[in-house]
């Protein structure tokens, strides 16, 4: 079955007597037991909920995994995925990961006795050099946020598995429509579902998808024990948003490609960071492992002042954190999504102060380009 069909062709209401086309919202905390000393399929919504189950099964299927787990946020998903580690373990992460992730890695995991090292994972030599006997997990985004660097997921997976390490990939910038890291060898795929999966900026949520059953059991245990599973209403909204994932991303990506070229040709733009451009360093690797370049891109505005001025001058692009929504947004990563990067890391992370990140929505392409062009006129 093709992806467009898979997005809508699944059982939306297993075991429901009325067979609704839309998944029922089981907004309940608890479930009646079949017997006094045993439970049916569901006992308590922190442990399992029928609405959540439909979402989790659908995302597992779209990512070609076996089990998915929905969380209250992308960061709750990252927290659960990294909670499989124990005190004394280390994570080896690409240096260009979301600011909230580096904050978790810097402020919480060390208190749990888990160390984090950063390396340039687009360079395999750098990966090898940074590994230590304590390394237990390799963590990357591709394309990364906000510099859209491309990591060779297949190559990293091979190295990780040679050493018996887990490989976790945050696939939020691509979604399962454009990239399936499990197929490339990743062990855990993480999504901020707030982004493309939801697509409408109305849900904060996250997902972890795995193939291996033992790993699935561990994540399930943590989801229940730590209690950060996604609520039924949010699961329903995500299921609704997910049905149009392809329609939305096709439109967003087409505009993003045109906008990337517009920016690349713009006299005042030095660099455009978009893996769909032939000029992008990761263009070939990305084309091998993904089916499109997505709709997040960044560019250098020339100066921090100019970046701020452009962001505040555009009319259709709203200043907001997050990406992947039907609304186009503009942000200054260093001041917004990545302001949470611990200071000691900011210097080494090389995020330019004049970097502007765009997330392209579903507005008319010409109007978006005209809005940017007008804002960039000095």
């Amino acid at each position, binding site marked *: 079955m093709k992806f467009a069909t898979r997005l809508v062709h699944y059982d939306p209401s297993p075991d429901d007597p009325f067979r609704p086309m839309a998944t029922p919202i089981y*907004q*309940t*905390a*608890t*479930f*009646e*037991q079949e*017997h*006094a*000393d*045993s*439970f049916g399929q569901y*006992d*308590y919504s*922190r442990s399992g909920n029928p609405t959540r189950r439909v979402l989790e099964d659908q995302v597992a299927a779209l990512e070609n995994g076996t089990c998915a787990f929905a*969380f*209250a*946020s*992308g*960061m*709750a998903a990252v*927290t659960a995925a990294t*909670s499989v*580690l*124990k*005190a004394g373990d280390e994570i080896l992460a690409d240096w260009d990961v979301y600011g*909230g992730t580096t*904050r978790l890695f810097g*402020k*919480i995991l060390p*208190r*749990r*006795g888990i160390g984090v090292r950063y390396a340039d994972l687009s360079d395999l030599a750098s990966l090898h050099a940074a590994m230590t006997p304590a390394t237990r997990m390799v963590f990357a985004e591709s394309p990364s946020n906000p510099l859209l660097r491309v990591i060779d997921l297949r190559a990293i997976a091979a190295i990780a598995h040679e050493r018996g390490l887990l490989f976790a990939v945050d696939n939020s910038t691509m979604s399962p429509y454009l990239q399936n890291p499990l197929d490339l060898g990743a062990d855990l795929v993480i999504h901020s579902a*707030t982004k493309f999966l*939801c697509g409408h900026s*109305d*849900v*904060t949520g*996250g997902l972890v998808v795995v193939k291996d059953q033992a790993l699935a059991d561990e994540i399930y*245990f943590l989801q229940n*024990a*730590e*209690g*950060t*599973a996604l*609520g039924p*209403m*949010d699961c329903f*909204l995500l299921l609704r948003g997910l049905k149009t994932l392809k329609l939305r991303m096709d439109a967003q990506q087409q505009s993003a490609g045109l906008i990337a070229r517009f920016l690349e040709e713009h006299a005042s733009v030095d660099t455009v960071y978009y893996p769909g451009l032939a000029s992008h360093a990761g263009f070939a690797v990305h084309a091998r492992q993904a089916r499109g370049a997505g709709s997040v891109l960044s560019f250098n505005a020339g100066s921090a002042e100019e970046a*701020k001025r452009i*962001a*505040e001058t555009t009319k259709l692009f*709203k*200043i*907001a*954190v997050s990406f992947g*929504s039907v609304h186009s947004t503009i942000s*200054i990563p260093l*001041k*917004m999504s990545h302001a949470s990067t611990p200071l000691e890391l900011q210097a080494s992370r090389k995020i330019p102060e004049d970097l502007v990140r765009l997330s392209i929505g579903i507005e008319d392409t010409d109007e978006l380009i005209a809005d940017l062009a007008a804002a960039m006129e000095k």
Partner: protein
Amino acid sequence: MSDRPDFQPSTLVIHSNRSYESQSNSILFPIHQTATYIHESVGVTKGYGYSRGANPTVNALEQAIAAVEGTEHALCFRSGMSAITTLCLALLKAGDHVVLSSVIYGGTTRLFLQVLVNFGVEYTYADTADLAATEAAIKPNTRLIFIETPANPTMKLSDIRAMAGLAHSHENILLAVDNTFLTPLLQPCLSLGADISMLSTTKYIDGHNATIGGSLATHDEEITERLRFVRKIIGSIQAPFDAWLTLQGIKTLPARLAMHCDHAGQIARWLEAHPRVAKVYYPGLDSFPQKALAEKQQKAFGGMLAFELDATTEQSLRFMEALKLCTCAESLGSVETLITNPATASHCDLPLEQRKSLGISDRLIRLSVGLEAPKDLIADFEHAFAVIFGSHA
């Protein structure tokens, strides 16, 4: 609401979360079902940047909970367990030690035994009803005493004031109380000296079995900011829709609690007088060994009780299944009467030996008394007794 400090709790739960600045004059607070917010300019927001950090609807619930907790500071979480997880990640680091009530919700036990232990956090169980035993459990690296009173499921009580005194006689030890069984309206644990009050809002605060949620409240601004920071990092904040439902539930909390307590007292006395009942655990009964402590620190005896039949475990389970109005289900504190067998439900993760030593027998039955007419509940019990023991039970 700090400008209206004199309102009674029943007024506060209705009015503490009203949006007086609302342009629309809506009586109910809106559901801000949004992930992100439009910035006025780069770095300038109206106080909300991203809903993982804060959300107006969640904040409205937090104000209502803070009002009943008698403080300015409350935070809401995706579940009671995520509240405890966030608390521990905020206050503890590898190498720290926690003293835990030995009788405590099974989910809390699971978190400490099977999750936090991997992060290097140590724990010791103590009988927190016994001051000397609790003191003996304190180690140089103890940072937190975490108690539950009344404890789930045997209703064992711990003296909050005494525990606070013990914690605060040491440097750097905080007292956290899981106050889910009573809520701050019946047991104002922050006034009794606790540093942190924790609630599973799934229970009495929501009251309708509609949501999963949790909260933490404290007088300490520094702890609040630390909790808020960790909640934002690990993404454990309550969702807007669930917060909104809870916000509606909390409005009837005082009214519901009064009824829950009244009904539970009636059922407890009726069960105690029944010849087929071996034992009833309810702090309001004269037979309850810690009734004096309940009268000292509680404003009422609550809606939870436990009992054992003069029967085998197998008969006890059949008795539960014969009930029609009382539903076999996990959770508690809702309008529906819920009945569980802790040994196979809330405390199933505890090893058998440990359950036995704590008085959690295999035949123990826990009852969350709902708002159905007590007469109908008693008729339901009479019917179940007749099914199991014959009509002359």
